């Protein structure tokens, strides 16, 4: 009987060692992949270029607009919307999206054609990342405006401009 107890003890010991080793060795592999990546464009911290910032998750129009409204997560990028600018509403008609912004879009804009181009195309390029959207019409509190800061004509729907994206 004693020998059986001994063996049982040995087996139990070995099994528990196995169990502990298993705990130590099992590292569940985790989902990390690239397909659900999407981008928001923000201003480069160095000069007036657009830089894509990566996002993960579902790229709905609301998510894109919210990302623009919130600004960059990386500290070396600049927001494209002036401080305090909110998206009031948006409307999609075919390949055109009409976005209605609060008045801070024009009122708080720092001016200068370089930063105005970043604002306009940060917005347009981010939204036209959506394959179904080609044109963006900007409204400020419901009305069409001629420009945001005196240079770029935003009275008409705008198309994407890749030339402002930083060359890599």
């Amino acid at each position, binding site marked *: 009987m004693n020998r059986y107890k001994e*063996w049982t003890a*040995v*087996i139990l010991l*070995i*099994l528990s*060692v196995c169990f502990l*080793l*298993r705990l130590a*060795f*099992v*590292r*569940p*592999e*985790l*989902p*990390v*992949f*690239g*397909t*659900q*990546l999407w*981008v928001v464009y923000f*201003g480069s*911290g*160095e*000069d*007036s270029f657009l830089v*894509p910032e*990566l996002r*993960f*998750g579902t790229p709905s*129009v*609301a998510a894109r*607009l*919210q990302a623009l409204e919130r600004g960059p*997560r*990386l500290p070396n990028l*600049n927001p494209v919307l002036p401080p305090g600018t*909110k*998206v*009031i*509403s*948006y*409307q999609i008609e075919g390949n055109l999206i*009409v976005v209605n912004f609060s008045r801070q879009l024009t009122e708080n804009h*720092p*001016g*200068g*054609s*370089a*930063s105005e181009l*970043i604002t306009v195309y940060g917005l347009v390029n981010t939204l036209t990342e959506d394959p179904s959207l080609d044109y963006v019409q900007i409204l400020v*509190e*419901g*009305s069409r405006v*001629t*420009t945001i800061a*005196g240079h770029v*004509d935003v009275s008409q729907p705008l198309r994407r401009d890749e030339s402002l994206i930083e060359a*890599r």
Partner: protein
Amino acid sequence: MGKKGLIFFFAVSVLAIALFSASSGCEASFRFYIGDREVDLAASLVVNGNILIPISVFEQYMGAEAEVSLDSGELKLVFPMYTITGQIGTSKVLVNGEEQIMGAAPQLRHGEIMVPLRFIVDLLGLRLNTDTRQAILYVILTEEMADWIASRDQSGSVGLQLPGFPEPDFSELPDTPVLKEIVFMGGPRSRVFIDVQGFTAFHSFLLTNPDRMVIDLPGVELDGPIPTQEINDSIVKRIRGDRFDEQTIRIVFELNRATDYQINRWPDGGLEVEFNYQMGSVGYYRDEEQTPRIWFEANEQPMFRVQLLPSPMRLVLDFQYTTLLDGAREIPVGDSTLRAIRVSQNSPSVTRIVLDLEGPMIPVQVEEINGRYEIILFEGTEEEYQALLAQKAPEPEEPEVVLPVEREIDDSLPLAHRMIVVDPGHGGSAPGTIGSVLGVFEKDVVLAISLELGRLLEENGAVVVFTRSDDRYVSHFDRAPIANAVNAEVLISIHANSYEGTAAKGVETLYNPLYLENFRFAEVIQRELVNYIGAVNRGVRPRTDLHILNNANMPAALVEVGFVSHPEEEAMLNDPDYQKRIAEGLLMGIINFFRDYR
């Protein structure tokens, strides 16, 4: 072998099996060909005799389309005849909707989803040959399949890549993500940051009675115990967390009421949880001017999507990221244009307000009044609203053109009798950009430069017309028409630039690339100005979206003479001597343009 030895052997076997099954497979090392192309395998492994290769290989070398969900671990692989859907960690898959079992479960390794090769090869009716001595593995393609892959290659369809953007580098992340802490950030959406270092899958769900939201983090290690946080704001009562089982950490948000949420993944790991905006009462009234207004209570102004739908006509407003507090309801109105308002939770994150209309109506503006938000509605279509605004806008006056006094001009001067329009940017109520240190106004700097340039042009025989010669507002839309009205030979618009931060500096000239003359004009001005004042040359920039350049009937350029956001350049631009030098540089550009191209 005695009994004791037998038991020992048995025990060792158990140990070995335990160890083997514990590690999730061993790394395979072999050369791999699909058809006649060698595949550069970033990773591979062998599990239960099954070779697993990255799902992206099927995309890149076999023309498949792969889709994977970052959050749920679901994967989809589409071949011409077969659509395979599966899940990380389970060997059951659906092939065209029918359940099948793969030899091994898909899993993750080095940031890649690994899928059993044999299963796919068999499914597609291909052959897998192995040269065990040389450790080479061949997938032998059928002719049909090879043609298909070739056609896919030509169309350049490789779904996993985002063209032009760098793939994120996951290599520096720790193999096992670690939960550092849970930070409550607050705000109207009770933001919470879960600081996980490394990438983690997560599984989240809402539970009721008591209302709570749960996030499970599989495979995440703890840095230390998670302290319970008492929050007691409008959404979250308490946050606690603990190890749920051997592999999972569970974080529980005790809520005042079940509220939908979004979980955003941060670039270097970490999850940000945001609960929906809370939407309370909704109502309708007409103000003193009989303008219809919808009001709603919310802790913040949420953005909404607008849809005007016909038959029966209704306006649908979808408030994004909102939870409706008091349940669905219908508010009868019975007004001339509005029959009723219906409010409901359309999806977990969208509150929908539907206006049943008699005639078209659109929302135009939102105002915050006494802590509630009011949507101002316009009775008519978008086009009618914009037309009304255009009507209300002050009548566009005929642009005021001040022709210079007639004078004797020496015909030998380089610009003799040339009609030149100088446009100082902004002006009056539009200051343009404002300097970062001294606070200089763009409108003042560019006016000084323009007046000096005008004087120099006249000295050289030109006839000069200004769009403004003092500090007054001139509409954006009136500037090109002034130049057109006087049949100017060139139009030069003078601006000062600005960009966030203090690094950007230098001169750039914008032009409309529709006509070569515009480029020539811009290029010669840019070159002469930069050479003369020694500023940083940012080059000429083709733009098709600037009103003044698009509407000028003559060669036109918009010169950004420097950045007032750059402290040194701002100080220089504020200096009358530097302003004079800029004017001289521009003059040389204009003279050279007429000399070379006119």
